[in-house]
């Protein structure tokens, strides 16, 4: 193999599994260390830079970082990254003097964002410090988009939402509530330099089976959640069936419990291992007594005298991959209400089809996945409206990228010209065997989130279930982080091949051996290197014997002992910092 190029930002970025997995590339190990030091505001700001909504995401994120966490490969469960993010948000201090300064003299550029969800808010967050005037048009009477309408208050308190939205709106955003957009054409005719569409995926899928339109007790999940969020709906029948088993279904069943439901069943077509809901959301619902019933396919609604009394299902038996099923029999399950949570889709009835804006499959606009520009220059998409339903953290990342594009567009630069990522590597050596970070491995197990007692939590839909980590829990959990951003960096010319690093490594990542191709090298290492997703770090040729140093990055616990036992400092522990380009970090244009 050729020597590893550590100046390529992607190399060490991949070693920081959590950051690599995060759509917005939040610098997770850094903010966990800041929390460990009690620097909560710094931790919050470090988060905010990339993910904009640490308080909201600390409660509701889909957490792509956690399944990726290296700790899982070491002791079976990831660091509770998301919960720690909430700690930073809960304990942070005043942000006023840390937020970007908004120029009082505007650049004259005007941008309109449609929909006040996470994508549009991120665009505003990134463009306001550059002197833009940003108008956000929102059809409802509150900002937040699906974060407000679809996530129940017992998971995300309104205050948290309000506070983080206000941080952006208070930059001087012209937020116009109760302003639905009925025509893109008329918007384009107005005096805006760019249009950003962040309208989400607002239409819940329907289930057109017999009886669907004969009762008003059959609800579309996301519409029903929205109506609960705005207080229009405050009760439901005792027996509720939820159709579908995604995260929306989990929010529907748990909301039902708080509005009078007592016997809630979530009906799934397929076996449990094929569920779309996050495992922790399933656990939380089951803890509250929701029953999850597998292998039931809905066939019709059962009505008596115009009243919904139940729903008929086929009981299915699936093959191993759950591709083919056979029907065993049909059953009728009695109920008072049914909530359909079988997915959502985009809807753009207000975009005229003769504007030159290309529309592709499933009636979705054709959007460039890098620039987020549509086929109409100056019209950008982001969030669920761009690529179909994803989640908040993806919407934020789309917002960042679209903001760069909008800035390019307004500056007359090609939107395809993307600022490159940069990388900083700084030695963490403080003394002979002293590091700027806590390098010892801590064997603590993952801390469990405490929940409000069951008896109390159903009293009000606004009672937040998760109480947050205690100080002790936080202190333990931060030490589980393996500091994957503190990289082992090797200087081949210094190595005398004494083997000290190889002998001391607790997880046997290191080997000095003859070079070869990757497949061959993987068979000749100190310990089996079977995880092909994790890179081998190969050094330049070693001066004494012409062999190479090979490190399997897979299980390194970043304890720094290789560097401590190295007599020539060939190994060093260096902090990797990914320099993520954002619109805000580009030079402020001169006002015209």
């Amino acid at each position, binding site marked *: 193999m050729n020597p590893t190029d550590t100046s390529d930002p992607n190399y060490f970025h991949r070693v920081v599994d959590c950051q690599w997995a995060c759509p917005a590339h939040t610098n997770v190990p850094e903010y966990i260390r800041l929390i460990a030091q009690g620097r909560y505001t710094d931790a919050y700001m470090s988060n905010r830079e990339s993910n904009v909504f640490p308080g909201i995401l600390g409660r509701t994120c889909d957490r792509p970082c956690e399944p990726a966490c290296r700790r899982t*490969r070491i002791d079976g469960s990831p660091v509770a990254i998301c919960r720690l993010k909430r700690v930073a948000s809960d304990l942070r201090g005043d942000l006023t003097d840390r937020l970007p300064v908004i120029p009082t003299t505007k650049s004259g550029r005007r941008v309109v964002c449609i929909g006040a969800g996470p994508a549009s808010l991120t665009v505003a967050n990134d463009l306001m410090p550059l002197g833009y005037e940003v108008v956000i048009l929102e059809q409802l009477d509150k900002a937040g988009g699906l974060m407000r309408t679809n996530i129940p208050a017992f998971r995300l308190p309104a205050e948290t939402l309000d506070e983080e939205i206000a941080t952006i709106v208070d930059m001087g955003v012209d937020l116009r509530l109760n302003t639905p957009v009925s025509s893109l054409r008329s918007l384009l005719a107005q005096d805006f330099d760019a249009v950003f569409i962040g309208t989400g995926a607002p239409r819940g899928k329907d289930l057109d089976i017999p009886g669907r339109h004969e009762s008003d007790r059959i609800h579309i999940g996301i519409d029903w959640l929205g109506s609960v969020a705005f207080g229009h709906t405050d009760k439901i029948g005792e027996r509720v069936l939820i159709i579908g088993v995604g995260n929306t279904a989990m929010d529907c069943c748990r909301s039902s419990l708080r509005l009078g439901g007592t016997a809630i069943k979530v009906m799934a077509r397929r076996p449990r291992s094929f569920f779309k809901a996050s495992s922790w959301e399933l656990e939380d619902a089951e803890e509250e007594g929701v029953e999850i019933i597998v292998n039931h396919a809905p066939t019709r609604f059962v009505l008596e005298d115009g009243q919904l009394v139940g729903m008929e299902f086929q009981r299915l038996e699936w093959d191993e991959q759950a591709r083919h099923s056979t029907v065993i029999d049909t059953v009728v399950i009695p109920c008072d209400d049914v909530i359909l949570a079988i997915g959502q889709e985009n809807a753009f009835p207000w975009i005229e089809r003769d504007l030159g804006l290309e529309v592709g499959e499933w009636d979705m606009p054709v959007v460039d996945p890098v620039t987020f520009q549509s086929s109409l220059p100056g019209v950008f998409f982001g969030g669920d409206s761009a690529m179909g339903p994803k989640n908040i953290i993806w919407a934020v990342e789309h917002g960042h990228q679209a903001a760069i594009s909008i800035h390019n567009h307004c500056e007359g630069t090609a939107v395809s010209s993307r600022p490159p990522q940069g990388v900083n590597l700084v030695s963490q050596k403080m003394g002979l065997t002293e590091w700027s970070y806590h390098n010892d491995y801590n064997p603590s197990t993952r801390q469990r989130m405490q929940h409000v007692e069951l008896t109390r939590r159903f009293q009000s839909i606004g009672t937040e279930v998760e109480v947050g980590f205690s100080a002790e829990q936080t202190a333990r959990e931060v030490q589980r982080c393996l500091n994957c951003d503190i990289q082992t960096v090797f200087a081949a010319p210094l190595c005398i091949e*004494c083997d000290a690093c190889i002998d001391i490594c*607790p997880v046997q990542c290191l080997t000095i051996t003859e070079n070869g191709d990757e497949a061959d090298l993987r068979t000749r290492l100190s310990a089996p290197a079977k995880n092909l997703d994790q890179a081998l770090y190969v050094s330049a040729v070693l001066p004494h014997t012409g062999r190479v140093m090979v490190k399997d990055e897979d299980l390194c616990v970043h304890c720094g002992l290789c560097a401590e036992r190295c007599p020539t400092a060939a190994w060093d522990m260096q902090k990797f910092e990914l320099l993520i380009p954002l619109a805000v970090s580009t030079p402020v244009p001169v006002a015209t």
Partner: protein
Amino acid sequence: MPSIVKPLVTHPGLERNALGLTIRDYEGGMSTLCAGCGHDSVTAAITHALWESDTPPHMIAKLSGIGCSAKTAAYFARGAHGFNGCHGRMPPIATGASAANRDLLCIGISGDGDSLSIGLGHLAHLVRRNVRMVYVIENNGVYGLTKGQFSASADVGSTTKRGEANHLQPIDPMFLGLSVGATFLARGFSGDKRQLVPIFRAAMAHRGLAIIDVISPCVTFNDHEGSTKSYLFTRQHDVQMTVTDFVPPAEEITGIIPDQGVVSIPMHDGATLRFRSVPDGYDPTDRLAVIEHLMSAKGRGEIVTGLLYVDEQSSDLHELGNTTDKPLTQVPYEKLCPGSAALAGVGFR
């Protein structure tokens, strides 16, 4: 001193030996030697050989005297017995331990100072008695613990870190062993575990005293340009006389060494020692020829490594002394101590 002890976290794919133990179970305390010390690599090689040979840790006795090398007995096999004796006095203690319990695997760790200066007399007599044990000399040519004075193994002409040359003749433990009747002599290099581990395994299976002289550079005081025991010098002058492969009893012989020119020597416990002479015609069972080879190699300035001499025929301490075939702990008390009446019978004749 490292800032932390080696974390107990392990690689989840770690192999287990016949006893169900991983190599981490054969580790010991955290080394306090200098970073990059050759001794730590020797420790790692011993750890590896003990794990590979499925040795129960409680059947190991670690013995040492004084010096940097003597400390290393604490750094492997934390479940083993151990005795840290006076300077140079490890051999008599090892003799006693081996005499009392012939089932123990005795591993003596010594250095060039402990063995070739203050302990030279004891070492010579240990060889004569052919005590069944592994005797490791971690040889770096200097007294590291007292800041780098020449030891008795320093070569003529090699210099200290400050530049003074040595004029005294070195003692070579291989020649010493050959002259007083050693039955297993090997030399290795701490920087070459591929060679060292099979040698240790063979030494553990040898019936009698196995001396392994390991060039183990002192990274702090003797790893400089004037040294003949530095990492670089050893690599540049290392000539492997033999390539050794140890095949345990009841294991199919599919060695890592190509078959051509291989000599197989059956060992006492049923294992097989296979090795190939690198210079054609080197015969490690012919003492006279070995002396000749080593003498001429020394003249050429070569550091000869590998299993250099082996004799599986000579008797060990227990056979020579016609002792009990059981460890003393398993001999009934009445037999061990026949009582004062019997004593009166043998006394004052």
